[in-house]
């Protein structure tokens, strides 16, 4: 007998750590996404029922995979159409034991790449990744992305159907497609992270769960693709952001980097982020995530706002603009240039972006201008720009922040 609380904790831990692996293995064996999900759920239910009596198994992941596989065999045996799959399962079932989890690491990798196949619409990629790899419920995913649950359920059903009917292969793409496909996978993981990181209307615990899942999945990707630098770059970026999370708002008001309480930044996460970034950079194939992580590292390692290495950050933004051109990157570069070379140089760049009209509805354009004008002592112009930014700001925390700045002028 094991105490019920210990069992519940063990099952919860197994769910968090093994769900993706169990699902991935079952899909690999049966090719049937719904069957895989049903049988994995059955296996976790069986664990809750039998572990209190028999004790928590030595390798919970292997136990759950075997149980789920047996459940799949039973179901397929009842359905005549499953004969071919059944033969395949029977061959594998003759092994005395499922291979240990570490020996089939590519199952989860296959699952990530299949969920993020470019033939699937982008929102479906995100939803499917969260559902199959992270084991989030449809309701949780719907809440995080502000969609009604039935709509999200429909999206998941459609995505799974398309995988089957369009013949999307369940595999890690061959080497020549990898760079392009890896970018799609990293984009999905970063979107999941950002959804949890940015100020949103969801409850704090849902958002925290999303950043945690994104970091966990990216860690898996790093472990499974050691020679690729960009997964490490993305992991470093996430860790460095996560380290500052608790200081980003105070009583519902946005706190900018300059005013954040640096003593509350998580030093352990920063150290790990910097180390992960160094490993990525050592591979000498720079990508946009590595550059963004390098910028985040400059901020995270500066002892105070005044000693931030702005010239270095400006150089990094120039590199980022080359690798992944976007007007938002240009805007960030303008701020770095203002801090490194003086306000007039930065303002000139901001005015150039404004004149191009590419960021007309983006509140951070007038907010940035306002901030630079304030620093230059051009108070009246700064006020007008803050007003404009407040009109465009999408969240309450940002509107409150901008109102605060206005009052100070």
């Amino acid at each position: 007998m094991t105490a019920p609380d210990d069992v519940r904790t063990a099952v919860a831990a197994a769910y968090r750590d093994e769900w993706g692996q169990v699902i991935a293995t079952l899909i690999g064996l049966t090719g049937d996404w719904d069957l895989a999900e049903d049988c994995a759920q059955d296996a976790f239910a069986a664990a809750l029922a039998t572990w209190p009596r028999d004790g928590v198994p030595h390798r919970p992941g292997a136990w759950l995979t075997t149980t789920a596989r047996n459940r799949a065999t039973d179901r397929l045996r009842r359905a005549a159409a499953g004969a071919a799959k059944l033969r395949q399962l029977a061959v594998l079932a003759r092994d005395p034991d499922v291979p240990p989890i570490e020996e089939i690491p590519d199952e989860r990798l296959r699952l990530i790449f299949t969920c993020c196949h470019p033939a699937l619409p982008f929102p479906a990629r995100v939803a499917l990744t969260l559902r199959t790899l992270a084991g989030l419920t449809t309701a949780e995913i719907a809440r995080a992305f502000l969609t009604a649950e039935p709509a999200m359920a429909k999206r998941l059903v459609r995505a799974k159907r398309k995988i089957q009917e369009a013949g999307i292969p369940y595999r890690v793409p061959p080497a020549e497609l990898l760079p392009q496909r890896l970018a799609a996978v990293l984009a999905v993981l970063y979107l999941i992270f950002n959804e949890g990181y940015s100020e949103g209307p969801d409850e704090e615990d849902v958002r925290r769960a999303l950043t945690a899942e994104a970091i966990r999945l990216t860690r898996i990707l790093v472990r499974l693709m050691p020679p690729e630098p960009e997964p490490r770059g993305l992991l470093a970026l996430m860790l460095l952001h996560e380290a500052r999370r608790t200081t980003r708002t105070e009583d519902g008001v946005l706190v900018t980097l300059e005013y954040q309480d640096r003593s509350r930044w998580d030093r352990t996460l920063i150290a790990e982020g910097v180390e992960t970034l160094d490993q990525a950079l050592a591979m000498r194939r720079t990508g946009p995530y590595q550059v963004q992580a390098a910028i985040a590292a400059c901020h995270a390692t500066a002892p105070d706002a005044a000693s931030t290495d702005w010239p270095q950050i400006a150089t990094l933004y120039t590199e980022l603009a080359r690798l992944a051109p976007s007007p938002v990157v240009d805007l960030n570069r303008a701020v770095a240039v203002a801090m490194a070379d003086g306000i007039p140089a930065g303002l000139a760049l901001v005015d150039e972006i404004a004149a191009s009209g590419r960021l007309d509805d983006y509140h951070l354009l007038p907010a940035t201008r306002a901030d630079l004008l304030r620093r230059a002592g051009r108070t009246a112009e700064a006020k007008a720009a803050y007003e404009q930014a407040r009109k465009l700001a999408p969240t309450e925390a940002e509107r409150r922040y901008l109102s605060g700045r206005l009052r100070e002028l």
Partner: protein
Amino acid sequence: MKYVLLICDDETNQPTNEELAADPVHQAWEADLERRGAELVGERLRPVVDATTVRVRDGETLVSDGPFAETKDFVGGIVIIECANLDEAIAIAAGHPYARWGGVEIRPVWE
């Protein structure tokens, strides 16, 4: 799996069959299909001005000129292929010359 490739463009660029056959990209594409043993059927279609659309509404047959909807790209040819999966179909479609200025839509055959 069986897929139909719908070879689409906006018909502004209409090479003759001879020009198409002489295009090195088209030749490479044909060679690729041959090597994979993937092609089942392939036909080029006459342009949309030669098209006729048939619809039956309330038992009445309506015949009209041209395509039934305004679209930017029109189907200019179809190729039916048999290959392992969508990734192989994508690889094949990417080699078609029209992919460079029009588009190639891949549709799995309902089997």
